[in-house]
């Protein structure tokens, strides 16, 4: 168990959670290694948030074993909490305190906090440090949430849909911050339903649907494993656009070349994106 705890920042076996008649988490296994950026991807209601809240120690579970930084989050001590950073899904309440006052105050809770001014700069709130929270925009408040999540210099950072409400520039800036933290060795677990975000950040992904992990692996590997079919698109002489899904796109193109005897009008060959894979995976799950 000790060797285990050292290798994995998060180790989950057979996690289950029920809300009344609704099964939110239906037997999830996760092994997240130290230093890894791990993405939990899935549609709304898939059980991502419930899973993360159980990892945070803020929700009870019905069954399963959970170890986060070597401890059961359900019995997390203050020392344990000081090693785990949380970015909640909902933005923080409008308060009368300024950004600087809030970040400085939260820094007091931790034994080895990061420098508050540095953290405010990292999340891009430097110009707003003296503003009261209630005067911030929604996106700015989310950045404050991220600042409060990392102020304690956590070993493990749990983020629940951190970039919802961000504009594209703010999202890029957030990605840079996550990469910086990852380079420093912070283990990062984030839920998202933005495919590009998962692909840009995560070393490994788990696709979750209906409370179960339906696919897991590195983004490129997932694409390869589940997305071998390419799409070939062309235009028929009568002007109708046709598409064909195939495992052998080269042969399809060769056949078309033969038929058209030269240039194929409107030819496009597309390899599936992670989004295609994801939609196919979660769609499959729905069809079951």
């Amino acid at each position, binding site marked *: 168990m000790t060797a285990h705890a050292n290798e994995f920042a998060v180790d989950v076996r057979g996690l289950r959670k029920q*809300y009344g008649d609704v099964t939110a988490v239906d037997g999830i296994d996760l092994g997240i*290694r*130290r*230093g*890894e*950026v791990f993405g939990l991807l899935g549609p709304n209601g898939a059980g991502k948030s419930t899973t993360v809240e159980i990892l*945070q*120690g*803020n*929700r*009870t579970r019905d069954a399963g074993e959970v170890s986060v930084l070597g401890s059961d989050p359900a019995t997390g001590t*203050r*020392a344990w*909490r*000081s090693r785990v950073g*949380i970015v*909640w899904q*909902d933005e*923080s*309440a409008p*308060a*009368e*305190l300024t950004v600087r*006052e809030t970040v400085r*105050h*939260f820094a*007091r*809770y*931790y*034994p*080895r906090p990061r420098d508050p001014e540095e953290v405010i700069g990292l999340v891009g709130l430097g110009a707003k440090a003296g503003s*009261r929270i209630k005067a911030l925009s929604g996106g700015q408040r989310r950045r404050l949430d991220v600042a*409060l999540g990392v102020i*304690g210099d956590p*070993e493990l950072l749990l983020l629940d849909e951190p970039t919802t409400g961000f504009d594209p520039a703010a999202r890029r800036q957030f990605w840079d911050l996550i990469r910086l933290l*990852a*380079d*420093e*060795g*912070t283990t990062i677990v984030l839920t998202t339903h933005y495919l590009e975000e998962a692909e840009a950040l995560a*070393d*490994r992904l788990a696709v979750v649907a209906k409370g179960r992990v339906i696919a897991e692996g*590195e983004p490129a*590997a997932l694409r390869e494993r589940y997305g071998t079919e390419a799409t070939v698109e062309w235009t028929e002489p009568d002007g109708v656009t046709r598409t064909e899904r195939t495992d052998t796109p080269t042969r399809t193109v060769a056949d078309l070349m033969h038929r058209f005897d030269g240039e194929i009008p409107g030819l496009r060959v597309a390899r599936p994106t992670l989004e295609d894979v994801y939609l196919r995976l979660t769609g499959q799950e729905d069809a079951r």
Partner: protein
Amino acid sequence: MTSTAVRTRAEAPAQRLPGAWGLGLRRGALEIKQFFRQRDQVVFTFAFPVVFLFLFASIFRDAVHGSGVTASQLYVPAMMASGIMSTSFQSLGISIAVERDEKVLRRLRGTPMPPSAYFLGKIWLVLFTGVVETAILLLVGTTLYGVDLPSDASRWFDFAWIFVLGLTGCALLGIAISSVPKSAKSASSVVVLPFLVLQFISGVYISINTIPDWMLNIGALFPLKWLCQGLRGVFLPDSARVLEQAGSWEFGKVALVLAAWCVGGLVLCLLTFRWKNRRDG
């Protein structure tokens, strides 16, 4: 395959977590700062009992038969008791319910902040606002309505313990009732109604000698009645004792009931306090 999972992190030496007492002081300072930045809240919190004192003590001013005091004088300790309960019970009951609904509490619970630091912060806030409120009412009472400050040290001592026990008991009750409202929207009605009823049956708005005994007996189960009685004992001449149910100030009983509420309130808080609202499980 390639990159990841090999990033390492220097193991930092274990360091002591910040203490609850120090964090409680910092939270107290933060709570007071937040309180005073909400102008409307400040004005209404402090003005409410003063306005009521002004209204009641100006409308009812006749001498109360055989007691040696005027109705105006009676309203001064009554409104002080009400002010203590409003700064503790009412303001905590509502503000904690709102903080729970806005997930401020859940967010704090996700940090290594010790829970006691949160409660210490609330106590500092209540102590601070309670002292200011009481001082304002005392100033109005002595300048406008003929109430004299106690001349001997033992009465000041009585005043001190009645204030502290009453404020603490009411604050704990406020923390306990904050778990009752389902959302921030219903918080003020859930908290204000019992407070209003208690004010009527504890001798705040209506003189103790005109309230039916059965109502007073219900009021006597709660701290406000005893807070009022103790403060009358401190600020009114002994001739006014005839108005009391027992014909005396009953300081011993006042101490006992208020202390019991401090202990009982603490137990109630420990048993019922929730960091999340019901929706968050």
